[in-house]
C-alpha cells in the first residue's frame, strides 16, 4: 500500500487512542517553570558579571599522580574490535528484539549515552577503546605503510558527514533499533573507516571518524583526565572545561561538527514535543509514526543545525573574536545537554542492557541473578523519582551553561580580547535562551 493511501485512511480512522499517560504526564504536574526561567536568569547574571570584569575561576590543571600503564599498548583497542565484530554477528544472527539483542543496546545506550557520560567525567577512555586504532596500526606496520592519502586536508568534514548520518539514523529513519539493519549499517561504516584509516593513518580517526571526534571533544570537559608519556600515565584534575582552554580555536569544519552535535541532540528532543508535532500539522495524540514524517524531520534536523550555527555565528560577530574561540564554549553545553537529554534513556534502556549482559549468549542464563521481570519502569510514573531526574537534568544543563559562559570569558581574556558588555550581549542572550530551551525541551509534553 502506498504511504499516501495509508495516511488518507488514517485521517478517517476511528478507533482507540492509547497515547500513554505516564512519564511526561508526571513532570507536567510539577512546578518546572520557575526552574526553566531561574536557570536562564542565573546564566544571564553570571555572564553579565563576567563580561563586566568579575574574577573568574582559574581553570588550572592539578597533577594528581602518575603510574605505569596497565595494559600493553593497543590491547584495549584489539579487544574492542573483537567485541565489535561479535556484536555485528549478534546483530545479524541473534534475536530480532532490539531490547534483547546486544547490538542496538550497545550502540544506542552503552556507547552513545553511557560512554559519553564516562568521557565527560573521566576523560578520553575512547582513545584506548577505539576499535579501529589498534588493528589499523598493526596492519599499517605489517604493510610497511607510512604517510597518508591526503584525507587530513578534509579537516573534520568526513566526521560531520558521519555524525549527520548517525543522527538521521537515530532520529528520522524508520527502524534504527532493528538489529540486522543496524548490523549492516554499523558493519559497513566500520569497514569504510577501517580502510580509510589504513590508507591515511590511525591519527586521522580523531579528525575524520565521527565517534572518535565526538568522544575526544566531550572528554575535553571532564574534571578528571590522564595524559600519556611513553609507558607512564599521569592523572589530572581541574574544573570542567580546564582542558578546553588549552585547545586552539576550532577550525571551520570543527565548528560545523560541534554545532551539529548540539543541534542533533536538541532536535532529538524537539521532534517529540507536542509543539513540533503540532507545528508540522499532526495531532500529537494520534501520532502516525515515523514513516509519515521522514521528509519533514529530515528538513527539521538540517534546519535546526542551520539555525543553531547561524545564531552562534551571528552572536560571535558582535564580539569581534574568532568564532572558533567562542565555539569552544559550546562544548560543555553539548556534553551537558547530551547527558541530560539521554538520562531517562540510560535509566530505562540501560536496564535492558544489563539484562542482556546477564544473558550474553541469549540462551536463558541469568549470570547476574536478576530474576524474572527485572526490567521495570515504575519510577517513571512516581512524582518523587521524576522530580529527582528533573533536578539532575536541571543541574546538568545549568552547570553546563555556567561553565560555558565562564569559559567564553576566560578564553577572551587569555586571547587579550575585551569586547565589553554591549558587544557580548547577543552571545549572552543566546546562552540564556539555550539554557531555557534545553530545560523546556525536557519538561514539555511529548509523544515519547
Amino acid at each position, binding site marked *: 500500500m502506498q504511504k499516501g493511501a495509508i495516511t488518507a485512511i488514517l485521517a478517517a480512522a476511528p478507533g*482507540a487512542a492509547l497515547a500513554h499517560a505516564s512519564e511526561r504526564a508526571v513532570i507536567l504536574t510539577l512546578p518546572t517553570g520557575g526552574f526553566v526561567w531561574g536557570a536562564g536568569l542565573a546564566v544571564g547574571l553570571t555572564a553579565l558579571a563576567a563580561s563586566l570584569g568579575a574574577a573568574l575561576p582559574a581553570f588550572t590543571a592539578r597533577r594528581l599522580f602518575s603510574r605505569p600503564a596497565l595494559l600493553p599498548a593497543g590491547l584495549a583497542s584489539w579487544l574492542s574490535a573483537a567485541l565489535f565484530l561479535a556484536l555485528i554477528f549478534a546483530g545479524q544472527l541473534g534475536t530480532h528484539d532490539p531490547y534483547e539483542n546486544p547490538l542496538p543496546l550497545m550502540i544506542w545506550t552503552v556507547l552513545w549515552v553511557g560512554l559519553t557520560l564516562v568521557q565527560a567525567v573521566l576523560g578520553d577512555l575512547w582513545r584506548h577503546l577505539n576499535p579501529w586504532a589498534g588493528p589499523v596500526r598493526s596492519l599499517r606496520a605489517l604493510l610497511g605503510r607510512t604517510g597518508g592519502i591526503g584525507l587530513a586536508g578534509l579537516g573534520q568534514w568526513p566526521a560531520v558527514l558521519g555524525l549527520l548520518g548517525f543522527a538521521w539514523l537515530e532520529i528520522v529513519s524508520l527502524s534504527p533499533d532493528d538489529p540486522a539493519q543496524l548490523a549492516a549499517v554499523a558493519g559497513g561504516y566500520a569497514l569504510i573507516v577501517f580502510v580509510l584509516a589504513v590508507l591515511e593513518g590511525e591519527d586521522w580517526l580523531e579528525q575524520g571518524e565521527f565517534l572518535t571526534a565526538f568522544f575526544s571533544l566531550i572528554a575535553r570537559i571532564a574534571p578528571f583526565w590522564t595524559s600519556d608519556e611513553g609507558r607512564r600515565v599521569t592523572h589530572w584534575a581541574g574544573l570542567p572545561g580546564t582542558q578546553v582552554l588549552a585547545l586552539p580555536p576550532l577550525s571551520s569544519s570543527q565548528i560545523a561538527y560541534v554545532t551539529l552535535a548540539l543541534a542533533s541532540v536538541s532536535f532529538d528532543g524537539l521532534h517529540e514535543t507536542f509543539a513540533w508535532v503540532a507545528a508540522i500539522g499532526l495531532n500529537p495524540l494520534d501520532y502516525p509514526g515515523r514513516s509519515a514524517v521522514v521528509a519533514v524531520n529530515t528538513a527539521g534536523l538540517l534546519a535546526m543545525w542551520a539555525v543553531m550555527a547561524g545564531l552562534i555565528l551571528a552572536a560571535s560577530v558582535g564580539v569581534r573574536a574568532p568564532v572558533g574561540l567562542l565555539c569552544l564554549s559550546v562544548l560543555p553545553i553539548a556534553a551537558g545537554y547530551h547527558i541530560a537529554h539521554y538520562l531517562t534513556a540510560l535509566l530505562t534502556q540501560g536496564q535492558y542492557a544489563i539484562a542482556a549482559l546477564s544473558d550474553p549468549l541469549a540462551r536463558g542464563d541469568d549470570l547476574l541473578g536478576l530474576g524474572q521481570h527485572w526490567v521495570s519502569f515504575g519510577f517513571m510514573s512516581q512524582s518523587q523519582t521524576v522530580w529527582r531526574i528533573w533536578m539532575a537534568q536541571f543541574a546538568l544543563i545549568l552547570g553546563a551553561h555556567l561553565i560555558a559562559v565562564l569559559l567564553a570569558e576566560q578564553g577572551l581574556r587569555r586571547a587579550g580580547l575585551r569586547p565589553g558588555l554591549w558587544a557580548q550581549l547577543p552571545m549572552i542572550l543566546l546562552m540564556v535562551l539555550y539554557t531555557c530551551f534545553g530545560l523546556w525541551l525536557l519538561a514539555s509534553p511529548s509523544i515519547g
Partner: protein
Amino acid sequence: MTNELSLTPSRRRVLQGIMGTGALTATGFFPGFAHAQSAAPIRLGFQLHRTGIGASYGRWYERTATAALARINAAGGISGRPVEIQFEDDGTDPARGAEVFGKLATEAGCDLVFGALFSHVVIGTAPRAAELKVPYLVCSEGHHVASGMLNRWTMQPGITDVKSQVQAMAPFVTANLGKKVTMVFPDFAFGHDHRDYFTAAVAAQGGEVIAQIAIPPTETSFTRYFPQIPAETEVLYHVMVGPAVLTFVKEIGEFYGTGAKPQLFGFMDSLEAVDIASPGLEFLEGSHFWEAHPRYKQADASAAETAYRAAVGVDDNGASVTDATDIATYSHMFSVWETLSVIKAGMEASGYQGPDDRAKFIEAVEAMTAFDEGEDHPQGAKTFNGKTHQAFGIQNISKVEGGKLTVVHKTAIEDGMYPDEVDYTTQAL
C-alpha cells in the same frame, strides 16, 4: 507465589524449551507432542510495539504473550505441536508494521501474525494480510474491524471494540449516576467516537448529553474550559488521553474544590499504567471508570483470573510482582492471552497442518460463536460474531474507593451489541 511464578519462564527459556522438544517430550513436559502427526513447531508472528509511542503497552503485551505461550506449550501446544512466537518490532508505525508483517509471513514462515494494538498500525497492516492471505489477529480495541473497513483476513477475537464498550456504559450511567451528561473529550477521531457512540446510547436510555466540550489535542491546561460545564450537569464523562491527563484531573479537582460536583465517569484508557493513588489524583476518589479487565483483584475473582494474574506477573493491585510502582496495562493486555487461546482453538478445530490451511483457520474462527469464561478467557465470557470478526464481552464499571478500583457493575454482553455493519464471510478468501 513462588510456585505460581515458576509458571512464567522467560521468553528465552520458553524457546529454549521448544528447541529441546525431543528430550522434553520424552520426559512428558509437553505431554501432547508425542502424539502429533507433525512435531514441527507452529510459528506465530507477533507484531510488537517494542519501540515508538506504543512501547509502554508493547512491554506488557510481550510479557503477556510470553506467559500465554508458556501455558499453551505446557498443556501440549496446539494439536500436539509445540508453539513458537517470533516477535518483531514494528516501531508503532504503519509502514514498518506492514513491512514486519511481510517479513514474519514470508521470510520467517509464520503461520499467522497477531498482537498489534495501535489502530494506525492495524489499519496500515491489514491490506498486507489480505494480499499475502495470512491471518492477522489484532488486539486493538478499535471499531475498524467491525466497521467493515478491513478485510476477511483480519479478526479481533480477543477484545471488545470501543463502540461496544462505550455503548455498554450508558444503562449504568443513566440509571445510577444521572441523566444529564456533559462530555469532555479530545477533539479528534478517538474523542469523536466517544461523543457519537455515547450520545446516542444515553439518548436510548432516556438520558441526555447536555454539553459536548471538545478539547484541542495540544492543550495542556484545561481550567479555561471548565466554566463551559453546565451547572445542571449530573455526570461529567471524561476521556482525556496523553501526557496532560494528570494535569486535567488535578485542574478539575481545583475547579470544583470541596464544593458540590457532578459524578465523574471516565475510561481507563486515560489512566492505563498510571497509579490511581498518585498524588494529584485524589479528586478521583468516588468516581467511576470503565475497565475491560479490573486492575485490582476483586474479592470474587475467579480461579482463572488468579492464575492469569500470576502467569503475567501482576500483583493484586495491578502492578508488576517485582515492582509495586510498575503498573500494568491490565485493562488491555488480556486480549493477547485470549487471542492466543482463540488461535489454538481455531487451529485445532480446522485441523490446521500448515500454511495451506490458513483459509480453513479463518473459516473455523468465523464459525465460533462464544467463548466461555475460564483459563482461556480470564477476562470473562464473550460472544463472537463471525460476520464482523469481532468479539463482544462483558465490561466492568469500577468505583475509586480508598485509592483502589472496586467493580460495582458488570454489563451484560447484550448491552454492547449493535447491528452488523459488515459481513466479511461474503468476501473471497
